[in-house]
């Protein structure tokens, strides 16, 4: 099954369809969907609203999305307190970026070997890697914890980056994609005497654009949002990443600091929101493609 993209008909046809679009039958349906959509967004709206309230207000009933008094005090406290919020932000960024880079490089290389090269043990090795699809991260946490502790890597960013780079899903996805790509260019290059590395780097990799983008986005968001790994493997503030750090923040500050925790959460979500607004189509197509390529 090939990747489905939204059709892009000619401009005149688009204009016409945009005008014709509002069938009387569809209007109640669209209205209903829009109401559902607003309800879906309510938790976020409430979160932002709570973050703009003064400390004692956040829990006050009756609740209102728009706070009676606006204040950025919660944000100031989240950024200026002894909690290294900015450090956590940076850690999340570093871990996500390096994990993504690592996955993209190693997965595409491995996929190249599986999809384009013939060698003994190709099938058994591939099936072994496929087994990894069924091994969830939570499962390997206990031995990884032990192993990292012995190596002194516990409570370090490497403990988060290394496991994330081992992506069977990535290898599988890229391989599937490569198999559906034509081989002619590569074979021609081979005949011209190019080395495998040159072929990979100059020809195969550029063709992998959409798949790499999709894998990159998935890996980045998964890493950014990961809670259980940092929760288990990281214990000190200066190595903590955002989700686990903010939850720990709530635990330490007690139930009296709703607005500060909401402010921290808002700041953590903001970059993803911005990226989504800008690259919405791109992200959705990427994730869709990974799903349809099964």
């Amino acid at each position: 099954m090939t990747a489905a993209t939204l059709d892009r008909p000619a401009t005149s046809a688009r204009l016409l369809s945009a005008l014709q679009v509002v069938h009387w039958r569809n209007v109640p349906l669209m209205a209903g969907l829009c109401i559902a959509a607003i309800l879906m967004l309510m938790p976020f709206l409430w979160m932002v609203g709570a973050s703009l309230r003064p400390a004692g207000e956040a829990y006050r009933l009756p609740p209102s999305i728009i706070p009676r008094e606006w204040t950025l005090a919660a944000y100031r406290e989240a950024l200026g307190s002894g909690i290294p919020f900015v450090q956590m932000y940076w850690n999340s960024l570093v871990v996500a970026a390096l994990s993504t880079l690592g996955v993209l490089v190693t997965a595409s290389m491995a996929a190249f070997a599986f999809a384009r090269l013939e060698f003994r043990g190709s099938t058994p090795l591939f099936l072994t890697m496929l087994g990894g699809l069924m091994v969830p991260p939570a499962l390997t946490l206990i031995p990884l914890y032990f192993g990292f502790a012995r190596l002194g890597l516990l409570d370090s960013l490497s403990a988060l980056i290394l496991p994330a780079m081992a992506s069977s899903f990535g290898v599988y996805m890229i391989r599937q994609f490569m198999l559906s790509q034509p081989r002619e260019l590569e074979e021609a290059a081979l005949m011209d005497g190019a080395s495998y590395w040159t072929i990979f780097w100059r020809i195969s990799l550029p063709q992998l654009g959409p798949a790499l983008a999709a894998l990159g986005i998935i890996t980045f968001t998964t890493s950014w949002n990961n809670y259980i790994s940092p929760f288990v493997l990281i214990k000190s503030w200066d190595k903590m990443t955002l989700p686990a750090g903010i939850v720990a923040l709530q635990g330490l500050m007690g139930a009296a600091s709703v607005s500060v925790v909401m402010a921290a959460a808002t700041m953590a979500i903001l970059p993803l929101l911005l990226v989504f607004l800008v690259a919405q189509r791109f992200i959705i197509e990427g994730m869709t493609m990974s799903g349809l390529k099964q």
Partner: protein
Amino acid sequence: MRSPFMSERASAYLFLAPGFVLYLLMALVPALATLAFSLTEVDRFTWEISFAGADNLLFVLSDRRFWTAFGNTFTFIAMAVAGNVGLGLLLAVLIDRQMPRAVLYFLRLAFFLPVLVATALVSLVWQLLYSTDLGILNYYLNELHLPSVSWLTNSRVAMVSIVILDVWKHVGFFMIIQLAALQGIPRSLVEAGELDGAGFWQIFRYIKLPYILPVVLFCVTYATITGLQVFDSIRILTQGGPGDATISLVMYMYEEAFGAQDIGVGSAAAFILLAAIAVTTLVQWRIGRRMVAQ
């Protein structure tokens, strides 16, 4: 493909090396180590390891809490998969029609944003929404003269509340994938059905659904595997409570290994989880193949 510089096989191994070694060290070996640990007893303070045979496994299998966790996890999956994939399909069908670009973008934003955000962070927000006496949901229910619901404090309702959060968070993902699948159905097929005089639901049931069945099945499998690993939301919203009403398998594993400091028992639980994933995946794959063949 043959290259003059290096044998194909050697090249293949070099390409494969980084990815495979990472996979070995970070996924395969830990998975096997889990099995090994489950056969040991480890003193957490001195880290002496002693062989314990099947003791841990027997302990887990005879632990009432384990079976509660097992039952809870499968109850969760039954509800969450049905909700996520079913509701996702319904939404996809409803959205699969002409509509103004702006409306489509808005709908996609609203439904997909929760997917992108960290489960841990949205759990913090929902914790406030769900609070029995001071929460937003109950407040509005009361305004509508409906009784308060003990979202997180009633053992029967608590699991449903977790499922609601899970569906809210993930339905967008499944909606988008199934929407793309629906839009990839060749027009000719649908038009043929229309010419034969088939109505909307008949077309859906006999033409569209069979066509996208592989994608739907993929969604079911994917949702199941991720459902088996549910941890973040439960840990933050209920910590497995009230009592043990919402404890999941991964939570049980974490609590035994890092809470009760019993690595052997935690590993045994992890191992059983792995077996559960393997069996479930295989069963679903088998059933899926037969359904598609029909």
